[in-house]
């Protein structure tokens, strides 16, 4: 179809990803995975590495898009950004001691490793975030669903209340208590 249509679609896609639209996320996820899998398979990685790295990069892109740290003009810029982050993350893995000790350094890989990049995250912050993710993963119901619906799916308290057939004020209260529960799990695992 027409160019106008294509541009309109791109803007919609970016906005839809920001809004957590499930289908837009799925389309974007599926369309970009093959290229990144290829990159990682070609550079000493496995399918499992590819999945982990891609998902980490995808989550980083999603966060940066939502916080406005990255504002792409079109979806090829967004795709390029996702590719670059995946690549940098994979370079970090290849440079890590654990990986080096199990793999011999081929010429090809040294060449790949010699590329310039910078993605240094604060390891303390990453650790805290991983603890929070792990705690949320194991939070248990109904808290997990409630927090996910409110914070991730961004449903309003009113909508959640009407779905659960309870007062809005008690949803608000439950949400707070669930956050306390989540926090106590994180504190206990610290």
């Amino acid at each position, binding site marked *: 179809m027409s160019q106008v*249509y*294509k541009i309109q679609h791109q803007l919609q896609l970016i906005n839809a990803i920001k809004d957590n639209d499930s289908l837009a996320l799925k389309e974007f*996820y599926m369309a970009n995975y*093959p290229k990144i899998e290829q990159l990682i*398979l070609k550079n000493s990685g496995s399918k499992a590495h590819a999945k982990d790295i891609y998902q980490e990069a995808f989550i980083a892109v999603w966060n940066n898009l939502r916080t406005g740290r990255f504002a792409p003009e079109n979806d090829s810029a967004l795709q390029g950004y996702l590719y670059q982050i995946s690549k940098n993350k994979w370079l970090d893995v290849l440079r890590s001691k654990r990986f080096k000790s199990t793999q011999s350094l081929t010429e090809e890989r040294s060449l790949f490793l010699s590329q310039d990049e910078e993605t240094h995250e604060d390891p303390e912050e990453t650790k805290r975030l991983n603890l929070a*993710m792990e705690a949320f993963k194991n939070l248990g119901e109904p808290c997990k669903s409630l927090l996910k619906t409110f*914070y991730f799916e961004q449903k309003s308290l009113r909508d959640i209340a009407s779905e659960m057939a309870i007062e809005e004020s008690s949803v608000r209260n439950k949400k707070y208590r669930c956050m306390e529960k989540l926090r106590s799990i994180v504190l206990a695992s610290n």
Partner: protein
Amino acid sequence: MKNSNNISQELLETVERHLNKTMSKQEALDFELRLAEDPQFRTHVADIKTLLLGIGNQSLKERLDEFHEALPESQMESSNSKTKSTMLWGKFAAAILIFAAIGGFWWFSTTQNERLYAEYFTPDPGLPTTMSSSTNFEFYDAMVDYKQGNYKIAIEKWEALSIENDTLDYFLGVAYLADKNQKRAIPFLEKSTQNTAFPLLNDAYYYLGLAYLKEGNIALAKKNLSLSATEDSQLLLSELEKNP
């Protein structure tokens, strides 16, 4: 998260407003000021933000795992080691040679009409899959498969919908055509052209013309192409007129 003091509900909601950018100017100023001056407040806010980020990231991760399951099989084959990939390249090169040979044969043996068809057929790029209202979810979910080129899966999902809709007929028709099944494509495309107010009518006639061309029915191909106002239809039609 070192501080075990409870976080108040008020503070939680203040941080939510800060993240959603729904604070008033005054509240935002006060908030920033307190962040700068009060280290305990700063720690609490950072803790809440980490928790919220954790909820978002983990929720997304669980969804990505579902998407990953839906990746087509072809992307799931492994070529891990160097030798294996070299072998694969060898096979690939052999396959290309065979294809080239077949291609050459195909090129000479195929008719003019099939060549025109191959030149003009590209599947409709599909609709933006961003309007996930719950009623249309299945339709747009199949659209994701369609756009990935997984026509068989898209067709299966769309046919399971069993609703009467010209857009659905149109995409079923194009998907069948892309799946090289013009016989099944034609009835769907015919149906989608019944409604003269159908927004994709020009495209529907174009693909219907192509489907008939593929079938070898030149008269009906010309008729339908002439009903479509798209540039490609007119170009193809003039080519068909040149070589009757």
